[in-house]
């Protein structure tokens, strides 16, 4: 953000002091927010392949964008489910150092998004519903990734999802970080696990930009409203899924069971709709996203 002219420093300092005092009162809330962020990023938290392991025993992974590479930061494939087939696609982090490197810390490059598009179109061709799991700090910020069209790969994935005739259910299972996360999130139903986060920017980066101090990440986290309950209040997601006692990392199977039930529930509802009607509702939902003022009214 540029520093704008006309700022009177003395007034500002008074305001900040006041605001900090207010925040002091809500320190407990603040702590709760940061706890959730730590849970969302917990090294033992179940990742996409953990959910797949518990939910879809016959999973068949499909690879490649047919163009440049197979990006291990996004996995996808076919699974048997409720007596039929489902296409499962999700960000994948690694648990040990080797896996983290191979998975690029769950940060996809353009070929990851292009693989996702390819699999979605394959699913659409055969009337296979799409299920995505979102768990990434964000798309990979690298020179080569930019050169190969990181932005265009994300926008094309969004457009691809908007166009699918099949039902789409997305679950944010951990970190829903910025555009790299949203790219798998243009779904008929977007669900969020209790201890996951969904944010336009990481609290650290936000603090670095706005407070010029990444140490203020706690403050940024508080103000960004990125926890599942806060995001739900903004009507950006459709439901929050409770986690097993203590958090998903304590009970992978239990977490997978909760996700599976929610998926079944939502798919049943979505499949009862005519595809055209389902798409209309998808568009109406994203059309409503946002809160603004108009003719003196606040609309959302």
């Amino acid at each position, binding site marked *: 953000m540029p520093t704008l002219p006309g700022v009177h420093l003395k007034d500002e300092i008074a305001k*900040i002091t006041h605001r900090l005092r207010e925040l002091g009162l809500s320190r407990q809330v603040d702590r709760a927010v940061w706890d959730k962020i730590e849970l969302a990023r917990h090294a033992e938290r179940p990742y996409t392949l953990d959910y797949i392991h518990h939910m879809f025993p016959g999973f068949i992974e499909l690879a490649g964008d047919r163009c440049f590479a197979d990006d291990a930061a996004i996995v996808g494939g076919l699974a048997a489910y409720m007596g039929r087939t489902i296409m499962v696609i999700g960000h994948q982090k690694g648990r040990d150092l080797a896996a983290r490197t191979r998975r690029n810390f769950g940060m996809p490059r353009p070929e990851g998004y292009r693989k996702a598009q390819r699999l979605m179109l394959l699913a659409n061709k055969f009337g296979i519903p799409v299920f995505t799991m979102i768990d990434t700090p964000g798309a990979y*910020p690298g*020179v080569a990734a930019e050169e190969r069209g990181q932005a265009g790969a994300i926008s*094309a994935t969004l457009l691809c999802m908007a166009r699918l005739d099949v039902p789409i259910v997305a679950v944010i299972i951990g970190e829903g970080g910025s555009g790299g996360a949203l790219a798998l999130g243009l779904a008929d139903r977007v669900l969020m696990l209790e201890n996951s986060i969904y944010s336009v920017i990481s609290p650290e980066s936000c603090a670095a930009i706005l407070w010029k101090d990444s140490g203020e990440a706690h403050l940024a986290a508080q103000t960004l409203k990125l926890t599942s309950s806060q995001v739900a209040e903004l009507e950006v997601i459709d439901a929050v899924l409770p986690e097993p006692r203590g958090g998903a990392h304590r009970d992978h199977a239990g977490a997978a069971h909760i996700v599976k039930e929610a998926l079944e529930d939502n798919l049943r509802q979505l499949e009862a709709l005519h595809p055209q009607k389902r798409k209309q509702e998808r568009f109406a939902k994203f059309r409503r996203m946002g809160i603004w003022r108009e003719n003196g009214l606040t609309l959302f």
Partner: protein
Amino acid sequence: MAQRVSVNISRRNGAPGDAESCPGCKQLLSAAELKESLNVCPNCGHHFRLGARERVAMLADSGTWEEIAAHLRSADPLEFFDLRPYSERIEEAEYDTGLGEAMIAGTCRIHKMDTVLVVMDFSFMGGSMGSVVGEKFWRAADTAIEYRFPLVAVCASGGARMQEGILSLLQMAKTTCAVDLMSQAPVPFVSILTHPTTGGVLASFATLADVIISEPGALLSFSGPRVIEQTIKESLPDDFGLAESNLSHGQIDMIVPRNQLKDRLVQVLGMLEGGVACALEPLWEEEAGRPGRGGPLAGALGRIKALANAPWRSLKG
């Protein structure tokens, strides 16, 4: 998102007569000189940023601009407060730029061609996309579909509007849906990328256009250069993310200098329109029921329909 793009902000509100040094050739240029040359350095061709109103004046035929959704304002949905409240930042941006938001939208004629035009302004909070930008884009797209006009989007953005949190992120999905509706119509959609277009705007509608035009030297990247440098711990190539690099990497269709932009834009729109006319012409019997376009009657019908729907359309669907 890429609000972290570092861009030199040249004050656009300085008193006339203020001289500015060109980042391209270091030559001092007077405000009057710059204004006359559409904010392009007459010496080296460096493209300075252009405000949204100036851009409209440059592209739209004189007196044809009618703004859409001008009354929309941010509602500060998160009651966001960093070093200053978001509401205050907005007020200041309004005061400084004379704009209500980082995007203005409207209908106009460009070389006599009816067009819906949306223009972003980087001076308004870094051209960031929040709820209002998303909604304005949707209404512009709606108008384009209703009247069967093409839509032109002039982009300039640091990315998502952090101060609206997750709501700003979702504007990427919202504008994408709007693009798809235009695709279905189909109405032509052309984007013009100017310095800088980054983050969530580049990763949504800006790169989904039928034809993507960029001004020379514009920075076009999803992540900002500083973020990438921090990640890869190396300095970036000189042409990193520039329009010229994007062109050779296949990401955009063409680079057009500002003084040729209006003409080239109309040529592209004309070509795409010509195609639509061809597609919808009932050359064969079975398709005769499909809606036509063009011609005074179709235009008039579109307008009447749009007016009839106006009250509904001003509220959220």
